[in-house]
């Protein structure tokens, strides 16, 4: 290490191309990465089951809020855009409706919702699972259950739900038009997903 340094340092003091030195810095970086990766693996092993359980519980709570049922069976098949999963809601061995998991874009990011649809094709409830809307503005739509409950009973009988216009209209919360549109888009996608089944 000292020999090449003597000759090289005079001309290139800032950076050494000595292979031994390069191997050393690579080795150190690799060692730090390996130790970090190992520790992360251990933490992940401990936390992953808990995180999964929490997310599952949250999903189920949202599903039973929009359409109470004994069990929810995942529907396998083609789904329209914005619908990420569709569940058949069973109560007492009988299908009482559908719960669609939707993901649409609001004003700040993706709005993930659960939308319950009865066998009559009418919305039974809407619940927002995850969102990143602006506090005190977008949250007037996505975090206000009384606004979300305005969807209950709406259907696609008279065409798609439209914001602030048409016969099947949803009045946007003033100042939060984009968040309102995102939610309406999700409900439309859920109704479309259920509509294509029958």
């Amino acid at each position, binding site marked *: 290490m000292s020999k090449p340094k003597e000759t090289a340092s005079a001309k290139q003091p800032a950076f050494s191309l000595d292979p031994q030195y390069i191997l050393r810095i690579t080795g150190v970086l690799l060692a*730090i990465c390996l130790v970090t990766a190992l520790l992360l693996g251990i*933490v992940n092993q401990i936390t992953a089951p808990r995180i999964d359980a*929490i997310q599952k519980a949250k999903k189920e709570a949202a599903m039973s809020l929009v359409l109470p049922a004994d069990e929810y069976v995942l529907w396998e098949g083609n789904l329209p855009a914005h619908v990420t999963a569709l569940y058949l809601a069973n109560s007492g061995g009988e299908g009482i409706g559908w719960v669609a998991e939707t993901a649409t874009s609001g004003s700040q990011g993706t709005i993930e919702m659960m939308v319950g649809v009865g066998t009559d094709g009418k919305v039974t409830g809407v619940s927002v699972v995850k969102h990143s809307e602006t506090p005190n503005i977008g949250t007037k739509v996505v975090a206000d259950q009384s606004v979300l409950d305005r969807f209950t009973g709406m259907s696609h009988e008279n065409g798609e739900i439209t914001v602030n216009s048409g016969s099947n209209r949803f009045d946007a919360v003033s100042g939060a038009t984009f968040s309102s549109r995102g939610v309406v888009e999700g409900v439309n996608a859920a109704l479309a997903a259920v509509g294509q089944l029958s």
Partner: protein
Amino acid sequence: MNIGKQLKEGLVTQNPVLVQLLGMCSTLAITTTISNGIGMGVSVTIILTLSNIFISLLRKFIPEQVRIACYIVVIAGFVTMVDLLLQAFFPDIAESLGVFIPLIVVNCIILARAESFASKSKPLPAAIDGICQGLGYTMVLLVMSAIRELLGAGTFNGARVFPAEYAANMLALPVGGFLTLGCLIALMQYIQRKVKGGK
């Protein structure tokens, strides 16, 4: 080693947010409610202290040319661990802090303290530096989120103080963050100058 001096530097004379102007992004973005402010402050303090200790321990082992890469790996490792632990044990805080926990990786306070203090100090002073700087950061977040939540939403830590109709919504938006931060920085400068002038 001088705990009193380090504490004074962290809280006042070298306050990471108000004097060093580091970590602005998270400061502006998450200070809409008091619980967010506390959650972010505590998370940053823990990660800052841990990364300071480890970088100080590794300071003779890490070659100069790759030091930044090594710091980032250490910091990112701790951030991911705290993120996973928060999600598993404090899901409510994890949800409201959202993307800002992963963003602690690129929070300049942590890299700045690693580079300017921890890499030149022994583990104990580095740990104290992490705690003091973290406290300074938490204090600013707390003051900012209290002002913004109280005036912007009319609530104090979730409890309603006055009806929402009278709240200045603007303060909860990014523009309110800039205004509050600007006022706090000005206030800090004023106080510091006043104290210096008095001497």
